[in-house]
C-alpha cells in the first residue's frame, strides 16, 4: 500500500512536553489537506488519548472524508496531504455508507477481516464477533451470519460492522458518517454502545458526520470542521451558536376554532391472499383522530414505519383513507374524493375548493415537479385548476408573487425542474403550495433532502409564510426537537397509532410515553432507553408494538394494546405503565 510519508509515527517527538505520558494513539501536527487549490484542512493539530471519543462534524464537502482518509493512512485520491498524522498502533476505518461486499455471506467477510488482522480461523473469528455483537446489544436470535449483507436490515449491518471492529480491537477506530440513514433512536443507541466500548477498552474513537446527526452526544469532545479549521463546537454539534433561537410558544398566537377534523382515519393495503384463500390486508394506520385549529401548528413525530407519511396522504385524500373520515370546514372530503375518482366529477367545486385550502409539501420536492414543463407552466396549470377566479393574464403576476414569497426570484418560473438544486426545488414546492392562497399546509418531511443550513433557511421561509398568512400547519418529522420548536401541539406516532399527544412545551420537557422519551433523548444526543430495532410492519408483536424494546414492559403489555388515555388536561398517553418505574432487569 502506498505510504505518502505521513503515517510514520515519531514516538517521543511530540510528547516531549508530557514526559510522564505514554504515546497518544493519535498525534496530528500541522496537517494540511488540499483538493486542487482548495484548502480542505489548514494546519490542524489534534491529539487523542486512549479511550477518548471525538466527534468531528461538518457539512457536505467540508473535508471529513479526506481527513479520516489521511488519519487512516489511505489518502483519498486527488487530495494532497502535508504535515504529520501519527497514529500509534492498528487503525480501522469504517467507510461512509457502511457497505460490505453485497453478495458474500457476512460470515466469510467477518472471518476474512478478523483473520487478516488477528490470524484466527473462521470459528474463532465468528466467536469474537459474537462477543462484539453482545456488546452492541444484538440478541442472538437476530444474528444471520449466513446471509449476504444486502439481505440484512441496515441496523444489523451497522451493528455487525461495529462488532467486527470490536473483535479486532484497534488502537484507533475511525467511523465516517456512522449509522447514517438509521432512525435516530437506533443510531444513538448503537453509537453510545460503541463509545462505551471505546472508553472501556482504551480505543481512540473518531466519529465524523453532519452536524444534525447527533454525533456529539456519545462523544467526550466535539470539533467542527468549517472553512478548513477544526474548532470546538457546542453540545448540539453546531459550532458555538451566536444566538439562541427565540423561545418557542410566545410568538405563536392562540389557535382558533377547529377547521380540519379527522376521525378514525385508517389505511390498509390488500395483500396476496393466504394459502387457504383467505383475504389478507396490512393495516398501516389504525383509526387516528386529529383536530387542527385555525392558525395552529401540529407536529407529527415518528420514525420509520410510524405511518406519519401515510397519515399525511390520508388527510389530503391522496388517496383517501380506507376507513374513517376527514372533514374540512364541516364537509366530508373522503366521500367527495372517493366518488370523484372517475373522470366526471359530481362535485368538482366542493373538492376543488378544499384542495385549494389544503396544500401539500412533498418529501422529495424535486420529484414532485413535472420534468417536462417549466416551473411557470406547471404553476399556471395549478392556478387554472384551483383559482379560476384569477384571470389568465393575471396568472404570471400571481406566480411571481408566490415565488418571491417562497424566497425565490420571479425568474425561477422560466426554469426547468431538473436544473434546480435540492434547496431551490424545496422552495419551489413551497411556492406551489402557496400559489392558491391556502389555509392549511400539510408537509411530510419537506426539508428531508436538504443540508442543515438549507434546512434552517427553508423552515424560516415556511414559518414566515405561516405567520404572515395565519396558516395552519401540519409537519411530519422524525426530529423531535426541530419539529416541536415551532409547534403548538405534537402527536407521537408509533406503528400507525398515536401513542402520545400533548402541547409542544410538555412534549419538549416531560414526555411520558417511553417512545417519546427515547425520541427526545435521541434528538438531544443522549442514550435512548429502547432496545433493539422496530419490528417489521408484517410481523408486529401482539399487544403493545413497543413492548419488546420498552424498559417498562411487563407481561400484561403482550395482552392488550394500551388505549390513548388522558393523564392531564390536553395530555394523552397510550401506555399501561406510564406512571410506573422502569423494570430493574431492562
Amino acid at each position, binding site marked *: 500500500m502506498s505510504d505518502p510519508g505521513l503515517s510514520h509515527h515519531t514516538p517521543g517527538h511530540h510528547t516531549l512536553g508530557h514526559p510522564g505520558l505514554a504515546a497518544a494513539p493519535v498525534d496530528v501536527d500541522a496537517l494540511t489537506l488540499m483538493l486542487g487549490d482548495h484548502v480542505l484542512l489548514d494546519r490542524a493539530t489534534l491529539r487523542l488519548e486512549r479511550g477518548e471519543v471525538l466527534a468531528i462534524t461538518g457539512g457536505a464537502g467540508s473535508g471529513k472524508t479526506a481527513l479520516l482518509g489521511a488519519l487512516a493512512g489511505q489518502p483519498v485520491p486527488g487530495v494532497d496531504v502535508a504535515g504529520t498524522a501519527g497514529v500509534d498502533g492498528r487503525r480501522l476505518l469504517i467507510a*461512509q455508507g457502511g457497505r460490505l461486499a453485497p453478495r458474500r455471506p457476512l460470515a466469510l467477510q467477518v472471518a476474512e477481516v478478523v483473520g487478516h488482522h488477528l490470524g484466527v480461523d473462521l470459528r474463532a473469528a465468528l466467536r469474537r464477533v459474537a462477543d462484539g455483537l453482545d456488546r452492541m446489544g444484538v440478541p442472538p436470535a437476530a444474528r444471520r451470519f449466513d446471509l449476504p449483507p444486502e439481505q440484512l436490515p441496515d441496523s444489523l449491518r451497522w451493528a455487525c460492522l461495529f462488532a467486527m471492529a470490536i473483535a479486532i480491537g484497534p488502537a484507533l477506530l475511525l467511523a465516517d*458518517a456512522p449509522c447514517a440513514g438509521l432512525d435516530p433512536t437506533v443510531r444513538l443507541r448503537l453509537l453510545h454502545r460503541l463509545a462505551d466500548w471505546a472508553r472501556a477498552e482504551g480505543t481512540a474513537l473518531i466519529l465524523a458526520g453532519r452536524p444534525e446527526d447527533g454525533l456529539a452526544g456519545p462523544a467526550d469532545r466535539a470539533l467542527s470542521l468549517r472553512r478548513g479549521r477544526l474548532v470546538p463546537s457546542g453540545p448540539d454539534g453546531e459550532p458555538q451558536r451566536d444566538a439562541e433561537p427565540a423561545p418557542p410558544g410566545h410568538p405563536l398566537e392562540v389557535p382558533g376554532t377547529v377547521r380540519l377534523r379527522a376521525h378514525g382515519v385508517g389505511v390498509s393495503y390488500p395483500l396476496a391472499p393466504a394459502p387457504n384463500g383467505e383475504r389478507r390486508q396490512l393495516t398501516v394506520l389504525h383509526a387516528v383522530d386529529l383536530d387542527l385549529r385555525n392558525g395552529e401548528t401540529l407536529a407529527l413525530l415518528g420514525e420509520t414505519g410510524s405511518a406519519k407519511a401515510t397519515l399525511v396522504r390520508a388527510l389530503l385524500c391522496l388517496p383517501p383513507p380506507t376507513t374513517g373520515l376527514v372533514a374540512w370546514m364541516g364537509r366530508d372530503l373522503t366521500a367527495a374524493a372517493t366518488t370523484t375518482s372517475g373522470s366526471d366529477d359530481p362535485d368538482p367545486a366542493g373538492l376543488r375548493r378544499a384542495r385549494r385550502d389544503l396544500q401539500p409539501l412533498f418529501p422529495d420536492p424535486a420529484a414532485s415537479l413535472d420534468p417536462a*414543463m417549466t416551473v411557470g407552466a406547471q404553476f399556471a396549470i395549478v392556478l387554472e385548476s384551483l383559482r379560476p377566479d384569477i384571470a389568465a393574464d393575471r396568472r404570471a403576476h400571481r406566480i411571481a408573487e408566490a415565488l418571491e414569497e417562497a424566497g425565490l426570484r420571479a425568474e425561477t418560473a422560466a426554469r426547468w425542474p431538473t436544473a434546480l438544486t435540492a434547496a431551490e426545488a424545496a422552495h419551489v414546492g413551497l411556492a406551489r403550495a402557496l400559489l392558491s392562497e391556502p389555509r392549511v399546509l400539510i408537509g411530510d418531511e419537506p426539508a428531508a433532502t436538504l443540508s442543515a443550513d438549507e434546512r434552517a433557511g427553508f423552515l424560516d421561509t415556511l414559518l414566515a409564510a405561516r405567520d404572515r398568512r395565519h396558516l395552519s400547519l401540519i409537519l411530519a418529522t422524525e426530529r423531535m426537537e426541530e419539529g416541536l420548536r415551532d409547534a403548538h401541539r405534537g402527536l407521537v406516532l408509533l406503528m400507525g397509532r398515536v401513542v402520545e399527544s400533548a402541547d409542544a412545551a410538555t412534549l419538549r420537557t416531560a414526555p411520558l410515553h417511553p417512545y417519546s422519551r427515547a425520541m427526545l433523548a435521541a434528538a438531544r444526543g443522549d442514550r435512548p432507553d429502547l432496545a433493539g430495532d422496530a419490528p417489521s410492519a408484517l410481523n408486529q408483536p401482539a399487544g403493545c408494538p413497543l413492548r419488546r424494546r420498552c424498559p417498562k414492559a411487563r407481561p400484561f403489555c403482550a395482552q392488550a394494546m394500551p388505549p390513548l388515555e388522558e393523564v392531564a388536561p390536553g395530555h394523552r398517553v397510550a401506555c399501561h405503565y406510564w406512571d410506573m418505574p422502569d423494570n430493574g432487569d431492562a
Partner: protein
Amino acid sequence: MAGIDPQPLSHQALPPTPRPGFARGLSGAAVLAALALASAAAPLMADGATIRRIDADPVVAALLDGRGSLSFALLAGVLGGVIGVGWAVAANLLAGLVGDRVERRMMRGATRLAGLPLALLVPLAGGLSGSVGLLALATAFAAAPAVATLAHAELDALMRAEFLTAARAAGLPEHEVLRRHLIPNALRPLLAAGMLALPRALAAESFASLLGLGLPPALGSWGASVGLAARLGDPLALAPPALLLALALWAACAIADAGVAGPASRIGKP
C-alpha cells in the same frame, strides 16, 4: 430521514459529461443516416440503366443491397416497436379497467417470449411462405417482446411518479392529469423502448437472408450477399456487405442504447 452524505469529492473527480451514451447515440444516428443516403444514391453510382448486381463493383453492389436491408429493417422495426409499445400500453390500460392480474399475466407472457429464440421464426417464415409481408410480421413479432418489457417498466416507473400526485393535489381530474402530465412524459421513454426494435429487426432479417431464407433476391440484402459470398468462397465479395452490415448494426444499437440510457436527456430541453 437522514441520508448518506453526498460524496464531497465526487463532484471534482467526475468529468462533467452526464451521459456518455448520448454522444455515441448521436454518432450512431449520423452513421445510419449516411448509410441510408449512400444506399439511396447508389443507383446513380451504378452505371446507367438497370441495376445488375452481379456485374457491379462490390462496394456499389453492397450499397445497393443496403436499400433492401435498411428499408425492410425500418418497416419491420417500426412495426415491432409499435406492437411492443402497444402491448405495454394495453397492459397498463387493462390494469386500470380489469385488474392488476391481467397486466401481470400479459407482461409475464412478454418476458417469457423474450427468452425464446424468436429470431429463428424469421427464416422459418421466409422458407415456408416467402411473402415479404409475412416476413415483416415475423420479424416484428421477434422484436416486440423485448420492447414490451422495457416499455412496461418505464410506464410503471412513470405511473408512480410523485408529480402525478402533486397534480392530483392541485385538483386536476384524471383525464387532465393524463393529458397534461402523463402523456408528455411517457412519449420519450416509449419512443426509446420502440427504438430497441430497429437493431433486432435488422439482425433478424440479415440472419434469415444469410441462410437464403430472407428477403427475395430482387430486393437485395446485405445478409443475402454475405451468405452468397460465403458459400462461393469469395472474400472480396464478402467484405463490403459484411462491413456495412456490422456498421449499421452498431449504429442501430448505439441509437437504442442512447435512448434507454436514462431520463437525463430532459435536462437540456428548450
